[in-house]
């Protein structure tokens, strides 16, 4: 298991508020990792930094074997080299069909000219079919994505991320607002995805994390409080004090 992503002593402050305060951690590949923490612990800011939306004041974010810095790249460039992000609220393109949503995400030339000259191959069509099967939306391919239920939108978004075939998948609260059955399906999807790539799940729900059965990182006030198995961190006194005990 080699290091894929290395967040190294990162600091970010907004108007004097230290959102990220010396944050360091390493994600390997393949790996499934859960990140938990109370509100304001810096979970979302951490993802903003990795995906290029927010620039840190100091520190570095290194990527891959070569350890190239992500900090100088644009959001779209970071996405192109293999960082996929799923937002808390499902964001699919409602006016377009499920199929078009998946096609949009499929690996391809991302330049305007590339999009203009794009012609769908049989391989693309097969890949879309396979993805739709995997996320349980095979019968809904022709439907506008806006007409899907909340859970279906979440899956479509996960499907879109898988279509991007990222090396690192950042997932923000995937189980929020889902029925128990939908949660189970989502767990399977994430576990499956983590066999070939790194998946980082940010989640509040302890039960959901326990089901993922993976290494857990606890954030607090912008830095790592504890790291280890779910049983290890839930027995940590500091973690209990700031998070679980409340």
């Amino acid at each position, binding site marked *: 298991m080699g290091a894929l992503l290395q967040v190294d002593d990162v600091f970010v402050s907004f108007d004097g508020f230290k959102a990220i305060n010396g944050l360091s951690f390493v994600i390997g590949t393949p790996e499934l990792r859960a990140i938990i923490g109370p509100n304001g612990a810096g979970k979302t800011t951490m993802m903003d930094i990795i995906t290029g939306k927010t620039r840190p004041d100091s520190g570095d974010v290194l990527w891959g074997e070569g350890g190239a810095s992500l900090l100088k790249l644009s959001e779209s460039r970071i996405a192109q080299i293999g960082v996929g992000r799923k937002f808390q609220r499902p964001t699919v393109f409602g006016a377009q069909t499920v199929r078009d949503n998946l096609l*949009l995400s499929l690996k391809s030339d991302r330049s305007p000219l590339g999009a203009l000259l794009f012609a769908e191959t049989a391989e693309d069509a097969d890949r879309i079919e396979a993805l739709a099967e995997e996320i349980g939306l095979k019968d809904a391919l022709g439907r506008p994505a806006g007409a899907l239920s909340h859970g279906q939108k979440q899956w479509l978004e996960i499907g879109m991320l898988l279509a991007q075939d990222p090396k690192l998948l950042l997932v923000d609260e995937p189980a929020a607002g889902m029925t128990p059955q939908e949660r189970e399906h989502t767990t399977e999807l994430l576990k499956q995805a983590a066999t070939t790539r790194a998946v980082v799940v940010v989640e509040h729900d302890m039960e959901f994390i326990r089901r993922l059965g993976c290494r857990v990182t606890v954030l607090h006030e912008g830095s790592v409080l504890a790291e280890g198995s779910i049983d290890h961190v839930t027995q940590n006194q500091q973690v209990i004090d700031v998070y679980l005990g409340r």
Partner: protein
Amino acid sequence: MSARPASRRPFFADNPSVLIFIAALGVFTALATILSEGFGLGLLSTSLVKTLGKTLCLCMIAIAMDLVWGYCGILSLGHFAFFGLGGYMIGMWLMYARTEDIVAESLANAPIPPTEQEVVDAIGVQIFGVVGSSEFPWIWTFADSLALQLALVVLVPGLLALAFGWLAFRSRVTGVYLSILTQAMTLALSLYLFQNDTGLRGNNGLSGLQNLPGLDDTPQSVVSIWFLWASALALGLTYLFAAWLVSGKFGSVVQAIRDDEARVRFLGYPVEHFKLAVFTLTAVIAGIAGALYYPQAGIINPAEIAPIASIYLAVWVAIGGRGRLYGAVIGAAVVSLLSTWFTGGRAPDIPLGFYTIQWVDWWQVLLGVGFVCVTLYAPKGLGGLVDLLVNREIALPGRPAKRSETVGDARPEPSET
């Protein structure tokens, strides 16, 4: 049922509006030709033919506006600047070549044949006398070449849009701020052209553009039909091109940018490049439309690219229904023709006893009320009426219409693994 089949179908099967539109445009052009003074029965006056030809050009820039606003979500309130620039570029050649003809004619009987410099000077006096000058400004360097001025019709609006768009999009200026910037751009350009020093005859603008050089013997009734044909051809090609553009993956990305720009960025698409491409492309379409419009109008001056013109353009597209190409065309045609009718003094006044509604003044109020009503009660615009009709057609043969496809009836079973 009405769901689209999984595989991509042929272009025209997916875009039935293209064939219908081109057929309708063909019928319209043929009818206008048959009824015209120049080629047919003489039931349509030449000025009306010109109005129709100009309307086709306005439909063309409306398609450009729909692409940039309705599809890409950039509310540009400056596209008439590009339209006007296209007009100025072709106008310079028309004016130069025509004046050259006149000067050559008047000097033909001179005892000593004039030198080349004398001819150029005489042209200069003819064109710039009105602003108290006779020197050719540098802007007119290529005015004697039709080919070069035609190239400038594309290049000048294109490069201005490219430079403006690059600066604006790179700084992530969006929404209302971008709209204000585009207004500032068109206002600045208009003020710049108003100055005599600019070299485009200030507030006089360029005139006599309806006279094609070398064709003095051809009556306007014939020339007007030529331009109608050219405008119809350009509009048809623009529609076809725009439909192709929005139906492919490029269109998919562009509409995704309209709906959620940040999300598209995280899919790895360089959003700014796409916006720049659409902005520049539509500026070029606007420039070509302008180059066809102003020879039919006969005159262009800086007032044409005042900020209000571009706002009207947005109103046309909103009333017609943005996000659908035929909506833009319908909106531009209906509103601009109505505007011509109401402001042309031919609409009957309405006497209320204590006050008489004169449409020349009240047309704008009517337009404003119409705009508000469409925005509030029919956000899909006039183009939405077409959808209503089409959906009814589909519903007729005993099948439920598209609408019946509702949320959540195909919820998949969670997979057991």
